């Protein structure tokens, strides 16, 4: 066969394809395995629980678009969604500001105790959440921040700060010192330099940390379940879990909730897949 293929180049390509069939099949299969469940949930989100239990893998006919409105209001996914947005939004803004300021200081200024400070803050990356959460719970109780969105924001800032500083400092440290000297010669103060030079030039790194923090916090579960109890304060993951635990398992409504929860990420992903992939893998590629 090899000899035959040698004589007929077209045939060689054919044999090449045939040899590749198992491999191509695997590619297809794995794509279905990763993407399929999301398609399935999307279909279920348009069907009622009874329809789903009758035929779990059928197409939605008719499509109950009204379920989204119902989920948003009656099932309070709207409340959960806004809670998530507020908490994650505030935490990401605070993280970016506080993290960038600290990273700027660590990267730009020479001062006594700089190394110790850097090591201390970055050691925060090594702290397992379990070590934190038990007493963070007590501390937030003391500060009157337990069961408040503000408390959760602070907890989120605390957990993600080390990594944010780590990524930003790595980037800021590579910026040439001359830029900052030039800005000083141009008459700008340290704060203005931070605002007008570091932040705009550091945008790629900042975008990375924003994406990373947004996704991680949007999906966060452990701190939310420990630090929030009010139904009205639940974030999306908690809201969905609440439905999972209810007596009567409303699969259809949970599926709708899942779609509401993953939709922002999917939409962002469709538009900014490269940035999001880069963001999510930022800490790992060195």
């Amino acid at each position, binding site marked *: 066969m090899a000899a035959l293929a040698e004589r007929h180049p077209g045939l060689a390509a054919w044999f090449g394809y045939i040899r590749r069939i198992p491999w191509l099949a695997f590619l297809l299969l794995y794509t279905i395995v990763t993407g399929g469940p999301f398609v399935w949930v999307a279909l279920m989100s348009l069907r009622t629980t009874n329809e789903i239990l009758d035929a779990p893998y059928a197409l939605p006919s008719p499509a109950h678009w009204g379920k989204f409105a119902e989920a948003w209001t009656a099932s309070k996914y709207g409340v959960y969604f806004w809670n998530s947005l507020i908490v994650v939004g505030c935490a990401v803004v605070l993280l970016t500001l506080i993290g960038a300021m600290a990273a700027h200081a660590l990267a730009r200024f020479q001062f006594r105790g700089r190394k110790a400070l850097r090591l201390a803050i970055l050691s925060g990356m090594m702290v397992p959440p379990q070590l934190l959460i038990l007493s963070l719970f007590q501390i937030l109780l003391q500060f009157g921040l337990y069961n408040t969105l503000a408390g959760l924001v602070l907890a989120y800032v605390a957990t993600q700060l080390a990594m944010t500083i780590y990524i930003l400092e790595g980037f800021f440290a590579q910026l040439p010192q*001359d830029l900052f000297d030039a800005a000083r010669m141009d*008459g700008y103060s340290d704060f203005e330099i931070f605002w007008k030079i570091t932040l705009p*030039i550091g945008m790629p790194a900042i975008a990375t940390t924003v994406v990373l923090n947004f996704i991680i916090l949007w999906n966060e579960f452990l701190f939310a379940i420990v630090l929030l109890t009010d139904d009205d304060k639940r974030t999306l993951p908690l809201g969905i879990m609440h439905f999972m635990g209810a007596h009567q398992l409303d699969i259809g409504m949970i599926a709708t909730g899942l779609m509401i929860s993953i939709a922002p990420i999917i939409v962002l992903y469709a538009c900014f897949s490269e940035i999001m992939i880069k963001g999510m893998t930022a800490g790992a590629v060195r």
Partner: protein
Amino acid sequence: MAVVKLEALSKRYGGNAEASVRSMTLTIADGEFMVLLGPSGCGKSTALRMIAGLEPISSGTVAIDGRVVNAVPAKDRDIAMVFQSYALYPHMTVRQNLAFGLKRRRMPAAEIEKRVASAADRLGLGPYLDRKPHALSGGQRQRVALGRAIVRSPKVFLFDEPLSNLDAALRVTTRNELIKQQHDLGTTTIYVTHDQVEAMTMGDRICIMNRGEVVQIGRPLDVYRAPADTFVARFLGSPPMNLMSGVLRRNGADHAVEVAGAVLPVTGFEAGLLAPFADRPITVGIRPEDIYESGAQPGCSAPAAVSARVAAVEPLGAETLLVLSLAGQAEECVARVGRVSAHSHGDAATLYLDAATLHLFDPQTGRALPRAAG
């Protein structure tokens, strides 16, 4: 218009026993183009940054127009600086880069516009005003950096090796451009470089630094002709001055040096200065252009023959360099001779030193013995 006066300026970094700049005293006249020249690490950049206000001053003073500015922050010294890396803000267009320093000074928008336009015009940056730095060539970036200094109309320009990132051809044209701009603007300028050609061609005066200290200050040709010590002698000029070890002999009222088997009469030095070195080793310096292939050549006023072995011949077109091994000398000598040389590699040759152009240095301290005036 400003006079910059440095008085015993020193810089010492914490933890370092040795100072980076030691007791530097220098006055730069109004409108003068002063070059700080020295090898890397000699403290010239540190000195510049102290003048700029980017580096705290350990001791001594910097005064601009008679006002001591030690405690004045960089932004209030009315100084503009061009960096080696240009330090253009990558997120701003050329226009914004030029205007950035003016905006901070609350200048009316119309005035900013006018100044940016005039600077762009002056530097031929008009077509690039809305580009960002990454879309510019090296030379264009350099000009933007210069423009950023010009628009400010500062009292003093500081340049920190502004040409070292350009390729050789561009460097020459930009150098001329810089000289022209400075001449037109008449702004007091301090220019740091390690390139002696730049120093020679650009500076009204050169301040040569070594190991944190000022070694010599003077007009380029003066320094070239009368280097203060062996360091300056070697640093200025290419190829550098040949330094040989010889012995000073007293011959009645006159003196002569024995070097490489030849005896050269020493003229033009005060006898009193030479007396302490009689019958003792002395460092003899001679520039490559003062070595001739024939004693009869024009310009050679006092030829003294030496025997040498030609170690290498380097024809450069306009001239030829001969690398010579002289008897009793550890280092090889370089002679700059005419377009065509009769010698070839390995020849034993006789060459002629112009004894009237000899430089003598104290072998212990390296300091030059000055020629008598006239």
